[in-house]
């Protein structure tokens, strides 16, 4: 996952630097509720200048940092996706 994306998640989830955000951490366990999920969606689309396709708007994609980053990365040009 892109480090900028993890920082963005950390800000939205309001978790401190000591809290580990792994690709498979359930976002719900990190405090993600409906309202924060909506704010996260708008922040992601504004920050990366992308529109997530309808097919990616679902509970599975918003279930973990890894799945959400995969959906975001798919909308970015390859050179913008950190390895």
């Amino acid at each position: 996952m892109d480090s900028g994306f993890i920082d963005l998640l950390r800000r939205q989830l309001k978790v401190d630097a000591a809290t580990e955000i792994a690709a498979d951490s359930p976002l719900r366990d990190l405090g993600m509720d409906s309202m924060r999920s909506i704010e996260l969606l708008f922040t992601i689309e504004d920050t990366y200048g992308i529109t997530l396709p309808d097919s990616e708007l679902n509970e599975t994609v918003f279930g973990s940092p890894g799945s959400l980053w995969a959906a975001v990365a798919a909308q970015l040009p390859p050179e913008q996706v950190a390895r």
Partner: protein
Amino acid sequence: MPDRPPATAPARDGAPSSAPGSRGALRRLFGGLPATASGRDLWAALGEAGLIEWMYPDGAVAAGVASERLAHVLAAAGERFSFGSTMSLCVQAATTLPLLAGGSGPCEEALRRALAGQAVVALAATDTTAGSDLASLRTEARLGEREAELNGAKRWINNAMAAEYLLVLARHRPGPHFTNFTWFLVPADAPGVTVRPSDTVLFDGSDTGDIDLDGVRLGNEHIIGRVGMGFAAFIRHIGPERLAGALWSVELCRGALDSTLRWLKNRPYGNGTLWDLESVRQRFAKSLIAVHQLQGLCDRLRARVVDGHDNTAAAMLKAAAGTTVNHVMETCGQLQGSHGFSTGGVQQLRAQAAIFGISGGATEIVRSIVAESAQEELDRLRLPAEQDVPLSAPVAL
């Protein structure tokens, strides 16, 4: 940022006195309508005068309503028309039209007609389930390749009886996740749509109704915005509605306190009037301070709501408006005694205005949103660091 009135205009007007939306112009416009005019009549008059478009600076409806302008319209309408007629303007201007502006095809035609005052659009979100639990709504949309079918029921929908169009929030997937909901534009005369008046005598002029949707089939061009963005789009536009509602509630409380003060000063008691009683003055002052606090909160949070799409700030306004209105109306009702029970008196307004604490997010729900950001909101209350405070200027909190 919405256009601001020039410095010569009254500070809290939505427009300079010579502008189409000035209080004087609105009074003249509304003065041409009977006092019994419905919300639909008001909407038509505003549209014909170009004042619905005026509420969206630069014609950017999708960007949202200018809350101050809407509040200005509501205040002018409230001077002459029923609470219900005035209320019917609020959600339609603040939330319904901006949501509709996110659509294409038939949505564009509906928006054009609504802006001209030729059509009323009702926001049909609340289901038969608890309004405070929107995620459990049962209205379903079955999405096909070319069309969708809607089944369900909506309750307590403002403008429903007068609407040409309904904006219906439906789930296209089971479960409470925010991506499971989508908005649909439903012509009110579509086969399978039934609308009847809601069972209330309190909101005359609002055309509040209950809606049944039974196998309503629509082409997919009636989907508003993106599939799965229903909740998110709703949340994006509810902030300006909450700000406009809070500004309107200040005006409503001011009016109730003003009429109460006149009553108290003219009501004989002993050798003077009721206003001479210290207990009465104490109680009145407490309410007056509460309204000033609410107005101050509107000023303080405006930028966060309008420019920052800050849901916590909007929730704070909604919670404060709901509790302040209830407190002020209860005070005015008590101070006016039996006079308050006159037809159209403050006790009637008290029952109607209780809607501020219920509709569009009950007070308890919006307080929960505030509690989610408790630490950040506490931190915002800190005094600025000493080195940041100019000695010659007052501390701006």
